């Protein structure tokens, strides 16, 4: 039954990628591999973008805070360190 199903699947597949009854296995292996690889690439790239943006935002806030503290110290004559 599985064999008949695989044969019908192979026969239906276009000729540019027809490897006989092995077609679903070859395609399955590459589809899974490429799919997981794409998911991994998206995970890494989106994670990098997310943390890079958050790090920039925090660095900006810290710079603003440091400037505010320095200004306040200059007004009061105290050493900010």
């Amino acid at each position, binding site marked *: 039954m599985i064999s008949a199903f695989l044969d019908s699947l192979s026969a239906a597949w276009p000729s*540019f*990628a027809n*490897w*006989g*009854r*092995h*077609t679903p*296995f*070859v395609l*399955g*292996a*590459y589809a*899974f*591999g490429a799919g*997981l*690889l794409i*998911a*991994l*690439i998206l*995970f*890494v*790239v989106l*994670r*990098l973008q*997310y*943390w*890079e943006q*958050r*790090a920039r935002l*925090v*660095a900006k*806030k*810290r710079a603003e*805070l*440091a400037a505010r*503290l320095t200004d306040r110290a200059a007004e009061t004559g105290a050493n*900010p*360190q």
Partner: protein
Amino acid sequence: MRMMQFANPARFLALSAWLAPLCFLLGLGLTVSAWAWGLFRGPSEAYQGDSARILYIHVPSAVLSYMLFFAMAVASMIGLVWRHIVADFAAKAVAPIGASFTAICLVSGSLWGYPTWGAFWVWDARLTSELILLFLYFGYLSIWTLIDDEEKAARLAAILAIIGLINIPIIVFSVQWWDTLHQGRSLFTRNLSPAFGIPLRISMLGLGLVGLGLWLWNIRAEIFRRQTLNGERALAAASGEKKGSTLTEMVPVHTDQRKPPS
């Protein structure tokens, strides 16, 4: 000493900013070319038929799965002994990449096994040790996920990675030590015809470069994550307006080494 200089997060960020996309794009081009060659131009194998075309994805994934684990264990060891924060980040960042390649290796191998052996899975020494490798990756990732204290998580994960190294020679030499259904070593032998060997080696190089690029990007993400968390903690402390709250209390963004444990 030179290696330690590269362990500086600022230097690493500068280096990886151009190296990661270069490795990734070059690797992607090589991988796609090798797969297209192997699938549409290369010959089918005399005994295995067209299912042998799976080897262009299966073999590079298998090699990368244990090479990345080895890299993870070495980085863990450096993190554990020399307490370099980038080494811990490197070990943590490589785990999802290694686990993905292990999963690709197991599934593609299974899809090759059915038309060749008549079974998707057999409890062969090579297959079983590769499955154990996947569980080791899952265990390593679970430690980082489940333990909140990152110092403790890094130490425990490093110990697991170092102990897990025992599995690497078992995977590599299992086909020589035991009588396995999985075929013996053929990758770096003269038995491999260039018609298969050339696209296979290009695919290995390509996927290796893709893996390296992703690893570098993931280490960058980990450094930015730590910078963000340190910065947010410092901001929260400063905005608390507690007595004695000054700029010097802010946690430094770039630290060469972790603080020694108290």
